């Protein structure tokens, strides 16, 4: 693997409630992201995946309500130690972000051209006219027809898919090295989702940016990712390249997730039973003892899994798993 652009070491995020209790939502997250690579972060609601992305951008509320620990290295600079002004120079410039809700993520009272242009103006020091020209170029780049006219439109005059394209244009305005996409297609219809995924793939091929793609949809992961991290209750529980992860998942949670998704490509012939995972995602304020997944796990071993917290171990080169019994899973596979 080439030198990583973004390297995250021991990231921890804790929230403090107004009552004083502390909730540890992201625990010891490590990963690296190289140029041109797409890393998918998969998890269910409450797994801490969105908080992880906001922590990288330092967009979480400040202390004392939220404490971030660890290191976030962008080409060697630790973002967590930058001043707020220094961090502003990174946001939207070197690391950009797109969000789940294109309906509410754009300011309703400003024209979309202006919303794209202000980022360029601030980071690249362009004049108003040049920045607007750049905005039109960007709208064209993200495949919006008639960009000159569309730059004058307000967000409410556009469809959901169009707005997400505008969000992507804003993110790409300053040619970022890293793009964080937080569930960018979840709110869209499947045909529009396919368009947006295609666009992101295409843009990545052209710009060589690295992409951290956050989603709960395993189909989307299979479609776009090079590597995958599976997150459960704030921890990375499995991490591997996309092919081995789907072919030979080692963590029982990953296996359960894959088994729970019906495959429409094989219905015509058969309908294999769905393996559902019993129970529900744990409350981050009251995580179970031992392995966080143990109360729902079909492979749990009493006296072991509910006592010890498993470490993240390399089962194979490039394939890490957090399970006390992964060796047995390896043999079975």
């Amino acid at each position, binding site marked *: 693997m080439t030198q990583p652009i973004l390297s995250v070491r021991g990231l921890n995020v804790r929230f403090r409630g107004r009552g004083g209790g502390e909730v540890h939502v992201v625990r010891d997250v490590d990963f690296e992201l190289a140029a041109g690579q797409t890393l998918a972060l998969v998890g269910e609601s409450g797994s801490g995946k969105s908080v992880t992305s906001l922590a990288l*951008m330092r*967009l979480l509320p400040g202390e004392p309500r939220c404490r971030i620990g660890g290191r976030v290295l962008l080409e060697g600079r630790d973002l967590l130690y930058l001043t707020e002004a220094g*961090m*502003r*120079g*990174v*946001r*939207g*410039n070197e690391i*950009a*972000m797109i*969000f789940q*809700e294109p309906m*509410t*993520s*754009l*300011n*309703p*009272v*400003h024209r979309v051209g202006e919303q794209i242009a*202000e*980022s360029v103006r*601030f*980071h690249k020091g362009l004049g108003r006219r040049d920045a607007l020209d750049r905005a039109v170029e960007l709208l064209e780049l993200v495949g919006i027809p008639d960009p000159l006219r569309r730059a004058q439109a*307000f967000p*409410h*005059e556009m469809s959901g898919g169009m707005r997400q394209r505008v*969000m992507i244009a*804003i993110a790409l*305005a300053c040619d970022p090295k890293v793009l964080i996409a937080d569930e960018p297609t979840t709110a869209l219809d499947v045909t529009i989702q396919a368009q947006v995924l295609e666009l992101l793939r295409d843009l990545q091929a052209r710009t060589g940016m690295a992409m951290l793609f956050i989603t709960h949809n395993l189909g989307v992961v299979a479609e776009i990712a090079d590597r995958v991290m599976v997150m459960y209750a704030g921890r990375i529980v499995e991490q591997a390249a996309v092919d081995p992860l789907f072919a030979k998942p080692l963590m029982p949670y990953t296996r359960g997730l894959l088994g729970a998704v019906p495959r429409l490509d094989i219905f015509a012939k058969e309908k294999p039973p769905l393996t559902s995972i019993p129970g529900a995602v744990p409350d981050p304020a009251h995580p179970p003892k031992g392995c966080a997944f143990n109360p729902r796990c079909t492979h749990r071993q009493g006296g072991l899994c509910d006592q010890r917290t498993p470490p993240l171990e390399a089962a194979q080169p490039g394939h890490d798993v957090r399970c006390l019994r992964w060796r047995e899973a390896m043999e079975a596979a």
Partner: protein
Amino acid sequence: MMRYLGSRLLQSILLLWIVSLIGFFVLYLAPGGPLAQFALTPGMTQEQLARIAHQMGLDRPLPVQYWEWLSRLLIGDWGQSYRDSQPVLAIIGSHLFATLLLMGASTLLAMIIGTWIGVLGAIRRYSIFDYLATIGAMIGLSIPTFWFGLIAIYLFSVKLPWFPAGNMYTVGDASFLDYAHHLVLPCLVLTLVTVAIWSRYMRSAMLDVQGQDFIRTARAKGLPEHVVLRKHAMRNAILPMITVAGLQIPTILSGALVAETVFTWPGMGRLFLDSLNYRDYPVVMGVLMFSAVFVLLGNLLADVLYAVADPRIRLT
């Protein structure tokens, strides 16, 4: 936008009609109804009263009477004062300026101060400033305006003779400074309430906007905080405030009435109270109807401003 404004206009006309029904109802509630003046005149016999009632058309069916009352209202014939036989509308007109001056000055002041307090409170939520502003606003809303006025007179007019305790100008002076000097105390008293309301709404509008996704987008672009605040947060938080301003008109008008009574300010409120004391029902009814129409027009104006300010309405 035209369709939006058209529908608003229609709604206002409908509302005006209901307002007139309520006004008519109140008028008939008066002891003796429109006959009250004559009923109070000593030596009036029942027959004479009945004759006057017939002359005034009071023995006809209510809908007919309502229709006549309404048509007179619409052509500007609002009756005559019992006191000095002046047309009601003319009397109201001669008192309007004073009230508008008082309301305008205090509203302007309240918007400036209230916006500042509200925005600052929202940005520094749960700070000492926010806490004090919250308590201050609650007390401001709770102090009876007339009592606060009395205390202000006692302190700043009696104990410390800094400001006049009443009237709008000194006879024989009437310069701009003289008006301003007289305006200070009533304006201060009225502003207290208005600032309290305005800062509360502004704070909650700012808090709402600050939680929106597009603010996160603006921050994710790396924009400086003052740009995020002014261009993205405040620009959106001001929108609902336009509606709030419209809805607060009756409250401010009520407040002005109270301030006018305490400071003998020669406005509509003073006129209203004097007429009430004289049982001058045409003027009382006139001021009541006029203030309702005033409020209605104010709300309509707020709707128009809103439509101009919000592109979501402007362009549809």
